[in-house]
């Protein structure tokens, strides 16, 4: 009992700390998001939020389920490794609702050019042409079928 003779100020000090501690815990409970620390030093829900972004490119498997005729042609040709949307652009909306979302027409002058225009930095074994010399301005699809472009039996006229 003697030790606690003049202990009033100690208790006061302790209660200040106590109130401060409680305040800290309460504020912390409110301010720190519930999922913080779920997986590490970050908000766990941020991982789920990153996964909720909508998709624009449906993926070639989806296109192929409806356009089996194109797949039939394409899978036998040299473009078999080229995905539909690499040429046709993002078409997830079209895949969801083909009747109301029509894919845009493609400009082969731009499209084929990007992949096939001769460039020193391209791998040597990749088929390249200097389009000005090769087609003389004629659209690529007058001679090549986009989905199966190799010209096997050379048609009369072109050599």
């Amino acid at each position, binding site marked *: 009992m003697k030790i606690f003779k003049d202990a009033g100020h100690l208790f006061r000090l302790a209660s200040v700390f*106590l109130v401060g*501690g*409680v305040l800290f*815990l309460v504020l912390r*409970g409110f301010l720190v998001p*519930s*999922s*913080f620390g*779920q*997986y*590490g*030093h*970050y*908000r*766990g829900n*941020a*991982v*789920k*939020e*990153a*996964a*909720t*972004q*909508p*998709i*624009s*490119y449906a*993926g*070639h498997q989806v296109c192929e389920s409806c356009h089996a005729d194109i797949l039939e042609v394409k899978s036998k040709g040299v*473009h078999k*490794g*080229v*995905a539909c*949307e*690499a040429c046709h*652009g*993002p078409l997830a909306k079209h895949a969801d609702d083909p009747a109301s979302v029509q894919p845009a027409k493609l400009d082969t002058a731009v499209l084929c*050019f*990007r*992949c096939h*225009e*001769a*460039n*020193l*930095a*391209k*791998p040597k074994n*990749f088929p390249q042409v200097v389009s000005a010399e090769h087609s003389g301005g004629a659209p690529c699809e007058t001679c090549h079928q986009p989905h199966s472009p190799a010209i096997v039996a050379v048609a009369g006229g072109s050599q």
Partner: protein
Amino acid sequence: MNMTRRQLLILLPAAAVAWKSILAGTPETSPNYNMTEHWWGMLVDITKCIGCGSCVRACQMENQVPDGYFRTWVERYHVSDFDIENPKVDSPDGGKNGFPPSSFSDGKNFFVPKMCNHCADSPCTQVCPVGATFVSPDGVVLVDQKYCLGCRYCVQACPYGCRFVDPKKETAQKCTLCYHRITKGLTTACCENCPTGARQLADLKNPNDPIHEFLKTHAVQVLKPYLATRSKLFYYGLDGSVR
């Protein structure tokens, strides 16, 4: 008086724990995707890249990347055999619309696709003052868009220059490895649209992923290995001049 305070002190931590668990709610279960079963990375085969920019366009469309900013881009290298130390690099509009004909006729010329390396020990996540960027349990470096302050520390910290601050949102943006796609079993937009298979998404935890066969039989390299960032963007056919 003494007793109640002691009781209170004992009760407080317990109460705090209980309060936290109330706030946390029940953890959501995501359908069919288990984060602990994956460890994502990517393989880039330089010898196959034709510089068509399909990946850059696909990334911008898929992720609504603002014009003039890139989450992935393609660089064209010209390395003269007389000056190997100083390669000439260009990347017009990130290589989005392909590349104009080369102005060189000598030396070595090739394309290098670049993007976030999804480092396992990433410098960018270490500098974030608020815990807004992190390596997810499946190995993808992500940014918490709600928490990011836009302080740009991470932009400076990334040794590969893969981050930027969105001019409208004022938050840090970067490649998410199409997290919204890979968690649904799709590949990334850039890999989906690569015509030659120069880019391939890789799940390093899946023993059946073709990446394992490739890594066993090919000499691969990562960018800036001396930084020990444990990058998971593996390059095949990478020239020593690439920075």
